């Protein structure tokens, strides 16, 4: 008996829960502009998120998936990617998408029951929100395969949840990224819960990052509440993927501070104490502590920023609320490049119907 293969999973954190920066932090952590940009984006995201929840509560939005607590992970992914890369989200990565150019009003339209939210202004090649869990991972692998075959220096990045790593599509993405050595980075945003099912019930694996070993990918675990570690790791892994060094599974360890969606009531299954403790580790607080320690942020700036951010969100909300419903015929008009005759008939039926000719 002898050993034929060895593996290990590293964990990266530079900014601790009290806002203390580790000595080995990457160079960009000294750049206040970078940190301020991170913080402002995270902060804006939180304003947007609480507004969206409020809209749902008042009947002005459908079911909405909050990103509360995920801000560091989501924003860092966006900042590490290039425009020409492809982002394949699940359903709560607004933070990534805002960096890339998706508008808040588009997010609202989607959750407001209007397909036009998916026709967003972010990179036109990015995938829309993906409800069937983890299927986006395989589409990202497919995109990465297209890049590789076309010799384009582009990277596909997907996000999946802790629950989503149980889904066969996730494994299939890892397997094909390894088999074809694809420019693919699969980020797991491990927020400890998949609706009511805790991380511990999903798998017997010690870490979720190690699932990448199954496909021969690079694997790494990061403190997903540490925006500096997240940005560093995402930059490194994306760069490696871009330059032919192979794909990575990144596990961002964070916590879902909200209900799963507005249709969920987490109090049914989740200990209040756990949530309380998680608030102590949340990402905005610790980055703000660092910024304040550096003297580049304070309560006044925070208040001013919030005012501005909320005003900006309000503009978006109003734009959303003012959007007229699509014509009924829209359900046919994007089915095919050219409408086949059977659908043409059905469309005409609807046109007649809407015109009041019920015969």
């Amino acid at each position, binding site marked *: 008996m002898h050993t034929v293969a060895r593996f290990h999973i590293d964990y990266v954190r530079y900014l601790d829960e009290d806002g203390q920066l580790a000595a080995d932090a990457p160079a960009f952590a000294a750049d206040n502009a970078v940190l301020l940009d991170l913080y402002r984006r995270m902060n804006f995201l939180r304003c947007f998120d609480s507004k969206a929840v409020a809209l749902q509560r008042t009947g002005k939005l459908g079911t909405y998936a909050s990103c509360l607590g995920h801000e560091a992970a989501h924003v860092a992914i966006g900042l590490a990617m290039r425009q020409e890369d492809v982002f394949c989200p699940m359903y709560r990565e607004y933070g990534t998408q805002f960096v890339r150019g998706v508008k808040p009003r588009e997010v609202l339209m989607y959750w407001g029951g209007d397909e036009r939210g998916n026709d967003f202004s972010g990179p036109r090649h990015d995938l829309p929100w993906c*409800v069937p*869990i983890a299927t986006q991972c395989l589409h990202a692998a497919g995109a990465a395969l297209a890049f590789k075959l076309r010799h384009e220096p582009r990277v596909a990045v997907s996000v999946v949840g802790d629950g989503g790593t149980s889904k066969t599509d996730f494994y299939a993405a890892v397997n094909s990224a390894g088999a074809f050595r694809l420019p693919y980075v699969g980020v797991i945003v491990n927020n400890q819960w998949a609706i009511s099912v805790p991380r511990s019930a999903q798998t017997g694996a010690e870490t979720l990052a190690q699932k990448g070993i199954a496909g021969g990918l690079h694997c790494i675990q990061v403190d997903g509440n540490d925006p500096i570690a997240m940005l560093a790791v995402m930059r490194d892994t994306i760069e490696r993927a871009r330059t032919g060094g192979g794909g990575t599974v990144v596990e961002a360890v964070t916590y879902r501070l909200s209900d799963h969606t507005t249709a969920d009531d987490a109090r049914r299954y989740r200990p209040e104490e756990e949530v309380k403790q998680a608030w102590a580790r949340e990402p905005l607080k610790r980055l703000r502590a660092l910024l304040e320690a550096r003297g580049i942020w304070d309560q006044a700036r925070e208040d001013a920023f919030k005012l501005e951010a909320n005003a900006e969100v309000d503009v978006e909300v109003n734009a959303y609320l003012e959007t007229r419903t*699509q014509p009924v015929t829209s359900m046919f008009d994007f089915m095919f490049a050219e409408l086949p005759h059977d659908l043409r008939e059905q469309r005409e039926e609807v046109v007649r119907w809407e015109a009041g000719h019920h015969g």
Partner: protein
Amino acid sequence: MAEITLIEAVTQAMAYEMRRDPSVIVLGEDVGVNGGVFRATAGLHAQFGSERVLDTPLDETTIAGLAVGMAFQGMKPIAESQFDGFIYPMMDHIICHAARMRSRTRGRLHCPMVLRAPCGGGIRAPEHHSEAPEALFAHIPGLRVVIPSSPARAYGLLLAAIRDPDPVIFFEPKRIYRQYKEEVPDDGEALPLDVCFVLRDGHDVTLVTWGAHVKETLEAAEQLAERGVSAEVIDLATIKPIDFDTIRESVKKTGRCVIVHEAARTAGIGAEIAAQLAEKSMFDLVAPVERVTGYDVPIPLFRLEMKYLPSVERIIAAVDRTLAYR
């Protein structure tokens, strides 16, 4: 005896059969402590514990494959697909194994499982949460497919499904999960899995439907009655096997048939019913068969979904078209 909703009847049937038969277990995503995202398994975990009510990892292939494996070894799993739109990854195990193991092994092994899934639109849910895939399963040899339309029928049909020694796909019309309550005695009485229900007698036209659209169809019949048109309303209930005899008898009397379902029209179950009419009731029909269905598009997001779903008005208009023939 309390009045209960359709979803409570589902819970009641599972609880009844779990008490009676220790081999019955429930598995799926969030079915445990959370009691299911719709609360269909509410209380079961508290009552029966973690060895009878299992939260699975988040993978529909896993749920289907585990259920099939357990069923081959003599358990009676009730597996849940959290929504209709997540059932497709389950199809391989259902089609290739659940539906065939008895035949494949000439009776040596079989697959006594139930696959439950909420189905249908109209609750303003997100994408993939509003689908009606019953036709896909009805085409598969070796499956039974059931969709109840009232609390009492949900209770009796689900009991029958759990007790049936072969696989049953059990769709629950989520739009009417809590639509109304009725008395459903918890007496363990199952309903047959091959008989449809005549919900309203009539002699001018036969309306065949199932699931949530029983509501709109009965409403249409009511409005038609006000105009002196007498519509017979049949709840198909068991989508496979189809109790065509009852439909044939009705059409013999009425000479007209309008089929209502929310799934896409092409190759839906309406097609099968219309086909059997064309085969067996040609000379009883005085008017062409009509299908009032979802269009051949994915059900739109919720701002437009009611424009997709068959409405009372569309049903009445179809009936009117058949009435033009004498």
